[in-house]
């Protein structure tokens, strides 16, 4: 029996739409799912529902004609089904079908994407605290190690010992560098004001982070840097832009190829370009790559937010962002940003 503050619902269709609705409805306290049906026994939401203890069936009519149902949501996309529903449902049962259910389904998907975006941001913010905690715990013993090593250098003349201790110091400095990179990246999400930023330095810093994008690393890095290329931005945001572009480039080359980084300045404008010899972007995707959530990467690897963020940041500083690409040859992203007034 239905009561007033609980809505009993059945879902017709267990594909993508059914999955999205199932997830939404199980989270809503006022909704009870009486069952889900799909003619295809292997439809994904059926399995999911049975794990949750929700009745599943391939016999749509039996579900449609159940008593005490307030609402039938039809996300099968099958126009004939509307007639079947109309013929078998109880007179007081309402039906959400056709484009109305499509809108609901779109909305649910959108909401879950926003949630994953928030999750991402939270994860980054959390990483800031985490990273500075780690940095502290590494830096103490690292200091002890490096300082004793330096002391040995000062206290002995034996060239063999000198050589070995120098290697210890170098290794220690590498750990220090990694530590600094992690904290710097974690901090990049905090925003402050625009200042004059030395672009070449930021490119080097960003490369240190982006290199971790793939495990296979057979990269040739070509740098063609102009002298004193400065732009007026928030350094953390520029860093984010560069890390995103380089990460994409390195991923597109699957760790193997040539990454060319160029900078220059002309008429008060700082120019940066990042070119790869990777997969390239098909023409039909060029329009879409800056859209939030557009990704061609497998789940867990791509968020589809990288280029969207890049575009947003460049726009904020009244800069230009361009892309040229050829499938199978590679891709070049170019940025122009106003140079700091000297």
């Amino acid at each position, binding site marked *: 029996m239905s009561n007033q503050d609980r809505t009993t619902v059945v879902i017709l269709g267990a594909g993508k739409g059914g999955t999205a609705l199932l997830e939404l409805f199980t989270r809503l306290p006022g909704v009870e799912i009486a069952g889900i049906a799909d003619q295809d026994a292997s439809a994904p939401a059926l399995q999911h529902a049975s794990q949750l203890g929700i009745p599943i069936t391939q016999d749509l009519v039996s579900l449609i004609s159940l008593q005490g149902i307030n609402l039938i949501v039809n996300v099968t996309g099958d126009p004939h089904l509307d007639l079947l529903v109309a013929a078998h449902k109880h007179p007081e049962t309402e039906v959400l079908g056709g484009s109305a259910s499509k809108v609901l389904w779109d909305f649910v998907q959108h909401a879950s994407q926003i949630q994953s975006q928030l999750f991402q941001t939270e994860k980054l913010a959390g990483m800031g605290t985490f990273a*500075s905690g780690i940095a*502290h715990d590494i*830096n103490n013993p*690292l*200091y*002890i190690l490096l*300082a004793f090593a330096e002391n040995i250098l000062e206290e002995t003349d034996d060239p063999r010992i000198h050589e070995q201790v120098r290697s210890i110091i170098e290794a*220690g400095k590498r750990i*220090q560098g990694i530590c600094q990179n992690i904290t710097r990246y974690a*901090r990049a999400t905090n925003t402050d004001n625009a200042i004059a930023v030395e672009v070449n330095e930021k490119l080097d810093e960003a490369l240190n982070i982006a290199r971790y994008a793939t495990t296979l690393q057979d990269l040739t890095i070509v740098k063609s840097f102009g002298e004193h290329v400065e732009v007026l931005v928030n350094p953390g945001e520029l860093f984010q832009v560069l890390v995103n572009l380089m990460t994409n480039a390195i991923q597109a080359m699957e760790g193997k190829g040539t990454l060319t980084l160029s900078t220059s300045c002309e008429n008060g404008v700082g120019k940066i370009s990042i070119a790869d010899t990777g997969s390239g972007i098909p023409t039909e995707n060029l329009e879409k790559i800056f859209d939030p959530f557009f990704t061609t990467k497998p789940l867990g690897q791509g968020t589809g937010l990288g280029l969207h963020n890049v575009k947003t940041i460049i726009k904020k500083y009244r800069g230009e962002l361009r892309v040229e690409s050829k499938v199978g040859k590679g891709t070049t992203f170019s940025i122009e940003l106003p140079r700091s007034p000297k």
Partner: protein
Amino acid sequence: MSESQTAGMFSGRESEGLVLVVDDESDVRKVVRMTLEKSGYDVVEAEDGEKAIEEIKKGENSILLNLIITDIRMPNMNGIDVINYYKKEWPSVPIIVLTGFPDVEMSTTMLQHGVSDYLVKPVESEKLRASVAKALEQREVRGF
């Protein structure tokens, strides 16, 4: 800087100054002591602020304390409280923070509170010595 000057420091009886080193990790204190003693400073160690005050008062004349080098994350006190703690006891003694926290905001706050330097571990011996020398110099200009 020059060889002869360094040698002079070693042979001379006179101390370059008394430095208090506060860190909860004994090897960190040992390393700082080693670095500074080579440049002719006298070093007193303590593992936290309270012990530091005890330690200095135990000595004959606590007036002779020239500089404090301290971590700001310690078991029973943290951050700016640590600085205020020393300021209350020894208002005119310069303080250098030596910490594992590479935190820009924290370092800005610290410098605003009159800390003379904010060094992040691992710090090179040369840099530590230079920072110590600068802190003591500034004090001479300001104080006496």
